[in-house]
C-alpha cells in the first residue's frame, strides 16, 4: 500500500527555509495535485518525496515506511520531469529499459514490460528512435512510459504538460487521467495550472510560500475555500473581491453585512467581529446575473472591455474603483462603456475577514 505521510517536513537551503513544517496525508491510489503560484514550494515538496532533495526536519513515510534515509531509487517512486529528462543518447527502448537494467531485471521481464507500456502509450512504432527524433507529445509519452515500466507504487509528475502546446496539453491530460484509472497507483502531480488541478485531482493541495493553504477535493476548494488566496486561485476567471462592512451583529453567529447601501444577514463562524469591521465580499464571475436577484446584492457596473468568445462573454468591468470580471452566457452585444445593473444571490457569496480568512461555510451542492 502506498499511502504517503509527511510529518513536520521542513526544507532549508543554506539558511533559506522554503518548506515550513508541512503535514500531509495522502491515501493509496489517490490522484493528488500540488498547486500554487511559482515559488510556492510545490516542486520542492515533490522532490523531497522523490528523495532528490534531502529533508531538513520531519519525516516522510511511503507505505508506512520511513523514507528519510532511503535512496530515491528504492522508494518505489517514478518521476516524470517537466523537461522529460529523456536520455538523449539512448533510444526510446533503452530509455525505458535503463532503470530495469540498473535493478538487474531479467531480459524477458524487461521485454514484456516495455511491450506492455509501449502498447498502452502507443509507442510501439517509436521504440528504436532517439528522443531528438520525437515530437513534444511523443517525448512526453516516452517519459511516462519510462515511469510505467518501473511499476512504481507512486508516480510523481513535475509540471509534465507545461512544455506542450494548448491542444496537446488537453489531450495528454485526458491520457493521464485514463492512465490513473488503469493503473490505480498513487499519483502526485505538480502544476501551477488550476484547470489541470481541477480536472485531474481526487485531492488538491494548495501551497503558498512553503505552507499548505488548504487540502481538499476540487469541489470542496471551489465551494469552501479557507481563505481569499485559495478562493482566488481556484476557479477561472478569478473570483471577484469587493469591500463591504459589518453593520450589525446579531445573536447565534449572525451578522448584517452592508454593501452598496444594501444589508443582508449572513450566518458566520467567527465571534471576533465587531460592528464597523471591514470585510471582503467575494463572488465568482460565473455567478453574476444581469438582473437584480431576489435574495442578494445588486449594483451597477461599467464595462471596460468585452470579450466575446461565442458561447460566453467575459466583461472586464468596474464597480466604483474595483475591477471585476463577469461571465455572461449566450450571445450579446454588450460593449465597452455600457453600464449594467447586476445581481448576485446570497448563496453564491463568499465572505472573508480582514486577514482573508473565510467567514462562512457554504453548503456543497449534492451530487
Amino acid at each position, binding site marked *: 500500500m502506498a499511502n504517503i505521510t509527511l510529518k513536520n517536513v521542513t526544507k532549508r537551503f543554506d539558511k533559506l527555509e522554503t518548506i515550513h513544517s508541512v503535514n500531509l496525508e495522502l491515501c493509496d491510489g489517490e490522484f493528488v495535485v500540488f498547486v500554487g503560484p511559482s515559488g510556492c514550494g510545490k516542486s520542492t515538496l515533490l522532490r523531497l518525496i522523490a528523495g*532528490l532533495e534531502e529533508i531538513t526536519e520531519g519525516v516522510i513515510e511511503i507505505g508506512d515506511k520511513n523514507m528519510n534515509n532511503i535512496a530515491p*531509487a528504492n522508494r518505489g517512486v517514478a518521476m516524470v*520531469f*517537466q523537461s522529460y529528462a*529523456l536520455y*538523449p543518447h539512448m533510444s526510446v527502448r533503452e530509455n525505458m529499459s535503463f532503470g530495469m537494467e540498473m*535493478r538487474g531485471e531479467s531480459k524477458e521481464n524487461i521485454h514484456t514490460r516495455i511491450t506492455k507500456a509501449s502498447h498502452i502509450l502507443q509507442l510501439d512504432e517509436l521504440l528504436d528512435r532517439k528522443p531528438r527524433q520525437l515530437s513534444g507529445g511523443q517525448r512526453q509519452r516516452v517519459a511516462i512510459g*519510462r515511469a510505467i515500466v518501473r511499476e512504481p507504487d507512486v508516480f510523481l509528475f513535475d509540471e509534465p504538460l507545461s512544455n506542450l502546446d494548448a491542444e496537446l496539453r488537453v489531450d495528454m491530460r485526458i491520457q493521464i487521467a485514463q492512465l490513473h484509472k488503469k493503473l490505480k497507483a498513487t499519483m502526485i502531480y505538480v502544476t501551477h495550472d488550476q484547470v489541470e488541478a481541477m480536472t485531474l485531482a481526487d485531492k488538491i493541495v494548495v501551497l503558498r510560500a512553503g505552507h499548505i493553504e488548504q487540502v481538499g477535493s476540487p469541489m470542496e476548494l471551489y465551494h469552501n475555500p479557507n481563505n481569499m488566496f485559495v478562493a482566488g486561485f481556484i476557479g477561472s476567471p478569478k473570483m471577484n473581491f469587493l469591500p463591504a462592512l459589518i453593520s450589525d451583529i446579531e445573536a447565534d453567529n449572525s451578522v448584517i453585512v452592508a454593501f452598496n447601501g444594501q444589508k443582508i444577514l449572513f450566518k458566520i463562524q467567527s465571534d471576533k467581529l465587531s460592528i464597523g469591521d471591514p470585510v471582503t465580499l467575494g463572488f465568482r464571475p460565473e455567478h453574476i446575473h444581469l438582473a437584480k436577484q431576489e435574495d442578494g446584492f445588486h449594483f451597477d457596473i461599467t464595462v471596460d472591455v468585452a470579450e466575446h468568445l461565442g458561447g460566453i462573454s467575459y466583461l472586464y468591468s468596474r464597480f466604483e474603483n474595483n475591477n471585476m470580471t463577469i461571465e455572461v452566457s449566450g450571445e450579446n452585444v454588450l460593449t465597452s462603456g455600457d453600464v449594467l445593473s447586476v445581481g448576485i444571490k446570497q448563496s453564491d457569496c463568499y465572505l472573508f475577514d480582514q486577514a482573508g480568512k473565510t467567514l462562512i461555510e457554504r453548503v456543497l451542492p449534492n451530487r
Partner: protein
Amino acid sequence: MILIKKMTPARCVAWLVLITMLVVTLFPLLFVAKTSFVPAGELYTTSTQLLPDNPTLSNYKKIFGLLSTEESIAAGGSGANINITTSMINSVIFTGIIVIVQTFNCALAAYAFARIPFYGSKLLFGAFVASMMIPSVVTLIPNFVLMRDLGLLNSMLGMVAPFFLMHGFAVFFLRQFFISLPKDIEEAAQLDGANSFMIFFKIALPLSWAPLMTVATLTTINMWNEFLWPFLIATDDSMKTLPVALQSFKSQTPQGQPDWGGLMAATVVATIPTIIMLFFFGRRIVESVQFTGGK
C-alpha cells in the same frame, strides 16, 4: 560570395594585409621545405631560389638512418645523428598516454566538482584552478629530484608523470560543461537506480563527447610540443621526443657547421603530422583553440 560584396578601399587594404600575413605565415615553411631537398654543396648557391636546382632525397635518407655516417658526411652531413622514427614514436606514445589518461582523470574530477557535494570540494577545486598559476619552472626542480629519487629518469613513466594525472585547465573547463548539462537527466538516472559512477559513465560521459574532444585536442597540441620536461628526463636518444631530438640534433655540430639540409628535412618530417592533423581535424582544432579564451 566575396566578390559580390562591394570592394571598398578599406576592404582592399584589409585583404591586402590579410594576404600578406598569410604569405608571412606560410612562406618560411615552404622555404624550409625547399631547403630540405637541396644537396649540401648547393645551399649557398640556391639560398635565394624558391626551388632547388638538383633536388635530392639524401637529407631525408640521412635522418631516417638510411645512410652510414661516412656516406652522410660525404653528403654534407655534420656527422650528427637523429633517429627521427624513434623520436616520432616516442612523441606519439608520450602524447597519447597523457591525452588519454589526463582527459579521463580530469573528466572524473570535473564531474565530481560539478555534481557531487562532498566535503572540501570548493576548497580543492580552488586549489586545482590555482595550480594553473604556478610557473612550471617552480615545480621543475622538485619534480626532477622526485623522478631521480624514484629512478624514473630516462623512462616514459618519468616523462609523462607530471602531466598525465591532472591538469588544472582541463578540470576547470570540463566542470563548466558538466554544470551546464541539464541536471534532471541525471536525476532521472538516479531515480532509475544508477549510482554516481553509473551516471557518470552511462549518462554524463556519452553526452560530453564534444568538450572531451576539445580538451583532448588542446592537450595534444601542448604535449606534442612540450620541450623542457622531456628534455630533462630523456637524456638517452632512444627516449627522446621529437622536439628534444631536434634540439639535440641541432646542437651537435661535429663538423663545425649545423647540417642544414638534415635539420630542415627533420623539420619538415616533424611538421607533417601537424599538417595532417590540421587537414583532417582543422575545424575541431581551430574551435578548440578558440574555446580556451572563451571562458
